């Protein structure tokens, strides 16, 4: 135990003096997440506000054929402006991106309307362009509203109650709470916590294995009267400490920066107070051991510092993969998911941020399974540390 602690202290001291480790552990990981997050949130707020308020300038071809429609559009804050020469030119313009959406009103529009033939109009847009898509949807909603208006006047003229055209009255009941809506976006936070924790220990994991070998200090170390198990466990412990520091900083940075984000404007009030921050730290702690052991394991296979760096950047991505898959498929938390490190922490964090009751069994499985996997990985590290090939 004494040896383990000696190694731990030395690695901590050594790495506190290393600017690269400090930079990645205490700056890069914790600050990067909240910054990116604030950027994304502000961008989405800006865009949602922008689209509702601003006047949409809609290029229209054949404006003169439908003056009523144009004035109806104006009442919906859509201003008709002169469009391209003809439909073909409009399509080309949309393809090129000079216009996002173009409305084409043919000459026979008024005639068809009078004859009660469905009057043809064309809305040209590029649906692959998400920015343009929003404008196109706004224009098409306005057209649908105009259609409903016309239909109403037509049936009234025939003495029919326009309600006959509305056989269903659909009530959409949204049970999502402001905290719940936050979860979608704030689910991203798990990435940053996992990322920050791993970044915090990455250089230490390299330094204590490939780095030590490369600078030639490994062989003298191994010739000392200590067991290799104690050396490697002491090194893993030091890696865990830096990862924990980085994670704590990242949690704090999020806690502080969320206060400054206008999330209410997006209808979100994330449940991320001091109690949740502490609970999140507790839930992520077992993952630290998995991360530290995994990085040490991978780094101990590499021949040099640079090679270790290359491989560890792959390891940085690996734990975020299950989170990504589950987020894309929007899977609900299941008991078996709690067996998977990083994923179980993510799902538990999402539940906490949503302010939903936490399943005690899920927490127990997550903590136990992650710890067991971490211990196994650390044990494998120790086994590999005993082999002769370690010296390279």
């Amino acid at each position, binding site marked *: 135990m*004494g*040896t383990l602690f*000696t*190694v731990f202290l*030395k690695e901590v*001291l*050594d*790495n506190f*003096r*290393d600017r690269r480790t400090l930079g990645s552990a205490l700056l890069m990981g914790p600050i990067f997440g909240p910054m990116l997050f604030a950027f994304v949130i502000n961008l989405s707020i800006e865009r949602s506000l922008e689209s509702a308020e601003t006047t949409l300038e809609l290029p229209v071809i054949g404006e003169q054929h439908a003056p009523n429609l144009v004035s109806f559009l104006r009442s919906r804050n859509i201003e008709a402006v002169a469009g391209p020469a003809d439909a073909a030119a409009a399509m080309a313009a949309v393809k090129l991106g000079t216009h996002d959406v173009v409305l084409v009103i043919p000459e026979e529009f008024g005639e068809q309307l009078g004859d009660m033939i469905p009057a043809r109009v064309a809305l040209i847009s590029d649906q692959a362009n998400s920015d343009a898509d929003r404008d196109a949807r706004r224009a098409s909603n306005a057209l649908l509203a105009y259609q409903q208006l016309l239909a109403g006047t037509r049936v009234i003229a025939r003495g029919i109650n326009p309600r006959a055209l509305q056989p269903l009255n659909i009530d959409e009941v949204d049970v999502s709470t402001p905290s719940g809506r936050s979860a979608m976006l704030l689910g991203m936070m798990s990435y940053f916590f996992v990322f920050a924790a791993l970044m915090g220990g990455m250089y230490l994991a390299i330094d204590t294995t490939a780095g030590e070998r490369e*600078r*030639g*200090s490994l*062989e*003298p*170390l*191994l*010739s*000392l*009267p*200590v*067991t290799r198990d104690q050396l490697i466990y002491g090194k893993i412990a030091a890696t865990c400490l830096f990862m924990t520091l980085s994670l704590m900083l990242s949690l704090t940075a999020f806690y502080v920066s969320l206060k400054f984000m206008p999330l209410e404007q997006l209808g979100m009030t994330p449940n991320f107070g001091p109690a949740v921050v502490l609970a999140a730290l507790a839930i992520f702690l077992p993952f630290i051991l998995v991360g530290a052991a995994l990085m040490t394991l991978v780094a101990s296979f590499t021949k040099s510092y640079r090679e270790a760096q290359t491989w560890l950047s792959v390891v940085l991505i690996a734990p975020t993969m299950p989170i990504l898959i589950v987020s894309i498929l929007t899977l609900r938390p299941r008991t078996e998911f709690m067996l998977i490190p990083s994923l179980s922490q993510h799902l538990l964090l999402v539940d906490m941020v949503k302010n939903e009751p936490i399943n005690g069994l899920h927490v127990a499985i997550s903590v136990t399974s992650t710890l067991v996997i971490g211990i196994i990985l650390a044990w494998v590290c120790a086994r590999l540390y005993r082999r*002769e090939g370690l*010296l390279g």
Partner: protein
Amino acid sequence: MITVKDIYKSFGKVKAVRGVSFDAPDGKITGLLGPNGAGKSTTLRVLYTVLKPDRGSANIDGADVATNSLSAREKIGALPHGAGLYPHLTARENIAYFARLCGLDKAEIDDRVDKIVKLLDIAEFAERRTKGFSQGQRTKVALARALVHDPQNIILDEPTNGLDVMATRSLRELILKLKDDGRCVLFSSHVMQEVAALCDDICIIAHGRVAIDDSIDGIRQRTGCDDIEDAFVEAIHRVEPE
């Protein structure tokens, strides 16, 4: 006292050591001499237990390097070839770290580190971080680190590599001092003159085998060469390459 009995070590197809035996007694300096790639480092690595011999055995004061390696390591101070330091720690911290790992307590560590710093004349740069140290400074600190726990047996793998004349000279004086203290000193080199000037016994190794193991005069006699360099070359030619 280091005893080596017929050890073999291969790395894949490369047979690095093919039956090396010798003794390195206390109070004497034993030189392991051989051209590059002869198997000197591999032999020494077996002795400071980072490699296990495929066959044969070796022991340090009776502790077998393969079956009782922890105990064997307690009895040695080793300076591996190209030993590196921790660049973010000062010279003193580098030495103290190894002392602590050897199980010395706080008071002992301070005392031993002070003594070794004085002995090796490194006080001038002891409080500086070792990043940017010269080769000579690095070797001195690495040597101090290997000797800090006052080991009876000292194994040095090409310690004079990269040292200037002054540093080589002070290292030679240190080795002689260790001998006078009754220690067992085993060191490797590929420079015949250096070994001849210092060693009581010389074990010439070539192609993973012992060519001659004798005193300097014995080697002169047995090879029939008066010039030590000629004797070295003659001895090496007696070993069949594998």
